[in-house]
């Protein structure tokens, strides 16, 4: 089942509190602009103003792989029920880009609204839409803003227009703008003024004739809005990360760029000295090499990258596995090679990362599905890396990492850091030395020492897998095999330590769904749709880590049919499941795949499952 085989169906209109004429708190807005035009802060004001009114929202930025001048779409989904996945259909369009305006209008939902620059003359394209022509340039001039910044001001004008048309509280807008420009009072006033100009224009000139409105709710109190990369950076900071070599690459750069800001604020001591080193490496080979060097020497070290950079790390990743060195690698997944769709989302690095490097390597992977998990796994990954003495990959994606998501606020870590099995000089003295690769505790995890440990028996020689238990060079077949078996045992131990999957549903349905990462959001919405429209109750298990824990095996065992939904072409999660699950269970698994670079949406999942269930009946 692939994307193009299914066309999304429009949502059934929900009854409005204001009466049948309105659709309240359940629609999506798309702002079509070009990148580099500075619309981001306007879009953010729009998003956060609605959020401030207590209404669940989500924002997704669809941007091109260049710096300025190409079409960009920002979509705000307003959903009283709290659905935050991408919604394929758009209800309200703010058409600021002449280049795409035609196509944008043509793809709107019937009954939709179009706010557009009057020069674009879009109102002749379709008769089933509500049109609002706005003389943006003229209004921008009215604001009295400098010619230099008039382009930016224009963006704030559309915020005002939308606010009035959609009944967004000006009070909420005002608070949002003041918060967003907290340190720049003048800019705040300027922007607010522009908003008002837009607002007033509508009030004085236009009549609303579309059904989309917002109404205050109380569904966002105490919630935060944040992107996954900022959350991951927070996790890393509170995990006590100290060494961060990196190399810029979209969509992972902001993990480290956020971290830099955070660390400069919160990890510099009274003398101005840093408890960290963040280094822009010359490439990803160097970044991962530094991570391993630092991890070997005892630091909590991480890097962040995306597909092409991850590919370059393959040799070192294997060395990390074999030489048993902690380190954390965030892979914020995107689509294809560098000249693929680098600014589109994907979940297609999974199988590659699971076994990255030649030879028998296996890697532990964490799979955050929420911004909160970006934070929590960001924390957790460092404990796991040091406990397991191995590189830990955290697989996020562009949708999670770069888009804005609502979330419960994050909790301060209560557990102290777990620095793993490290022997100090006193312990060595008591033990009379140690064998670096001996499985003392039966969990496959050996003890290590850190460079500088002040004991004549502390040192050992680190190399790949060509060593015996005492870290001495050997080519003996038995030693090699035993070491490989221990590494496999260690991987088994990982199963006990990684985050468990999360079950939703009664646990007693016949049909199960498995998903991971951002696919989650489409799946939970789809479950509601399936239940409502197809009378199909489902259970749902969200996988949060590789290797697979027992719950995953049990889930499949307990269901008659299990849909594995993911955002890649090659059914990567399904493949890993096939390798690991009891073979008798595998007939139950069915793949639902989405891989066109856009975030998966609920309608796609629902249609695929409904069709398949129909066929399977």
């Amino acid at each position, binding site marked *: 089942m692939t994307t193009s085989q299914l066309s999304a169906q429009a949502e059934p209109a929900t009854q409005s509190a204001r009466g049948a004429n309105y659709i309240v708190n359940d629609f999506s807005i798309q702002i079509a602009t070009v990148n580099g035009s500075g619309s981001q802060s306007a879009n953010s004001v729009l998003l956060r103003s609605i959020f401030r009114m207590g209404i669940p929202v989500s924002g997704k930025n669809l941007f091109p792989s260049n710096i300025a001048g190409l079409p960009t779409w920002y979509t705000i989904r307003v959903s009283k029920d709290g659905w935050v996945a991408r919604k394929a259909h758009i209800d309200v369009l703010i058409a600021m880009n002449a280049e795409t305006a035609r196509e944008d209008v043509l793809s709107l939902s019937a009954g939709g609204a179009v706010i557009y620059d009057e020069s674009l003359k879009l109102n002749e394209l379709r008769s089933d839409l509500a049109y609002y022509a706005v003389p943006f340039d003229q209004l921008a001039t009215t604001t009295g803003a400098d010619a230099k910044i008039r382009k930016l001001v224009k963006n704030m004008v559309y915020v005002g227009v939308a606010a009035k048309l959609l009944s967004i509280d000006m009070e909420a807008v005002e608070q949002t703008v003041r918060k967003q420009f907290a340190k720049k009072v003048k800019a705040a006033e300027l922007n607010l003024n522009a908003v008002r100009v837009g607002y007033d224009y509508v009030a004085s000139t236009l009549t609303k004739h579309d059904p989309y409105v917002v109404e205050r709710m109380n569904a966002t109190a*105490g919630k935060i809005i*944040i992107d996954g990369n900022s959350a991951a950076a*927070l996790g890393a900071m*509170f995990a*006590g*990360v*100290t*060494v961060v*070599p990196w190399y810029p690459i979209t969509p992972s750069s902001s993990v480290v760029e956020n971290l830099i800001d955070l660390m400069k604020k*919160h*990890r510099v001591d009274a003398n101005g*000295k*840093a*408890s*960290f*080193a963040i*280094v822009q*490496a*010359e490439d990803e*080979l*160097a*970044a991962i*090499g*530094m*991570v*391993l*060097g*630092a*991890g*070997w*020497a*005892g*630091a*909590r*070290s991480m890097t962040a990258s995306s597909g092409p950079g991850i590919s370059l790390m393959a*040799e*070192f990743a294997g*060395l990390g596995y074999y*030489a048993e060195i902690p380190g954390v690698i965030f892979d914020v997944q995107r689509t294809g090679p560098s000249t693929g769709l680098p600014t589109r989302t994907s979940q297609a690095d999974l199988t590659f990362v699971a076994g990255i490097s030649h030879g028998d390597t296996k890697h532990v992977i964490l799979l955050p599905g929420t911004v909160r998990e970006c934070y929590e796994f960001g924390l957790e990954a460092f404990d796991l890396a040091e406990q397991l003495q191995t590189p830990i990959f955290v697989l996020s994606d562009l949708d999670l990492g770069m888009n804005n998501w609502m979330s419960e*606020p*994050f909790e301060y870590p209560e557990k*102290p*850091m777990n620095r793993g099995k490290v022997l100090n*000089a006193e312990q060595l*003295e008591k033990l009379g030395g140690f064998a670096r690769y001996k499985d003392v505790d039966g969990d496959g995890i050996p003890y290590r*020492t*850190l*460079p*500088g440990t*002040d*004991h*004549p028996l*502390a*040192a*050992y*020689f*680190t*190399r790949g897998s060509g060593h015996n238990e005492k870290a*001495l*060079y050997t080519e003996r077949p038995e030693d090699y095999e035993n070491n490989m078996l221990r590494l496999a045992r260690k991987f088994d131990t990982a199963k006990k330590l990684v985050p468990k999957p999360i079950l939703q549903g009664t646990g007693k349905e016949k049909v199960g769904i498995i998903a991971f990462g951002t696919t989650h959001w489409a799946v939970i919405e789809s479950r509601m749709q399936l239940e409502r429209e197809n009378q199909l109750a489902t259970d749902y298990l969200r996988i949060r880590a590789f290797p697979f824990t027992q719950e995953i095996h049990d889930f499949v065992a307990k269901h008659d049919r299990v849909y594995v939904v993911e955002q890649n072409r090659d059914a990567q999660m399904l493949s890993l499941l096939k390798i690991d699950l009891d073979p008798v269970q595998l007939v139950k698994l069915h793949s639902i795949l989405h891989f066109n670079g856009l975030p998966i949406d609920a309608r796609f999942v629902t249609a695929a499952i409904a069709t398949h269930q129909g066929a399977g009946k």
Partner: protein
Amino acid sequence: MSTTPVTPKAIKTNRIGLQILDYRGGKTTLCAGCGHNSISERITEAFYEMGIQPERVMKMSGIGCSSKSPAYFMSRSFSFNSVHGRMPSVATGALLANKTMRSIGVSGDGDTASIGMGQFVHLMRRNVPMIYIIEDNGVYGLTKGQFSATADMGSKLKTGVVNDLPAIDICALAIQMGATFVGRSFSGDKKQLSTMLKAALSHQGTVLLDVISPCVTFNDHEGSTKSYKYMQEHEEAVSEVGFVPYFDDIAVEYDASTTVDVQLHDGSHMRLRKIHDDYNPTDRANAVKMLMDVHEKGEVLTGVFYVDTQKPDFTTLLNMVDEPLATLPQERTRPGREVLTAIMEAHL
């Protein structure tokens, strides 16, 4: 230092009471006569003589015969034999984690100048505080004798194959890229190499030593420009290198008109007595030019070509706390509860 064994009087020990034995490594598995083995010996001696606690040392390497040699000296030091051509990044990471350690990297000409070129250049540029030794034999020893990028144009393999690409002068490159202590020596020149190593141990910044180290198995024949014989015939010292360690109180006289005295970071002095006319060990551009000029003539310059004791090393630039980052306690690496609360509020 409680763990240092008490030594009976008769046995020779160094400043910190350790014997030369405490600096030895495992038995070499390199070919008998390989230049790399001599270099291991010189390294052992230098650390012993400078009285450096072996546990305070990290030995880093890439892949190759040369890169194996950290296994053959200083077993009491911590060692990381990494992957081919990427030792610089691993060494950098380790020093970021623990800048209080000393670091010595051993690489080969293949490991550095072929596959490792990218990382090498950037290590130099950062002036990462470590001693980086290239055991330079002009070939890939471990893969049985192919030319490396330091092989001279016109030099011949045993099989008669002639190298038709220009050699990379790794010293000229290192100077241009920003290394702050750059020299060349010869595995067969005990005195010069020892002295340079000791001076290197007193420098805070990247020390790049290109040590010509003949591969007796694949590149020690007639027609090679990296053979013992060729070196004996073509080595030309640019300067005589003298060294007065900080812990020797002796004031050694020198003639300031012929000798440059360089005070190194730990207070030791390096005395460079000019031999070559164009010699000026503090002029970068000049040093590069001299190396390029001499290389054209087929001579092999040795000695310390360039030294800069002013430029801050990479760990200094990063302005880190004094203690190793690796072992900072949780209190210093996990900000308090109130920090998270404030951040959460900002995202409300």
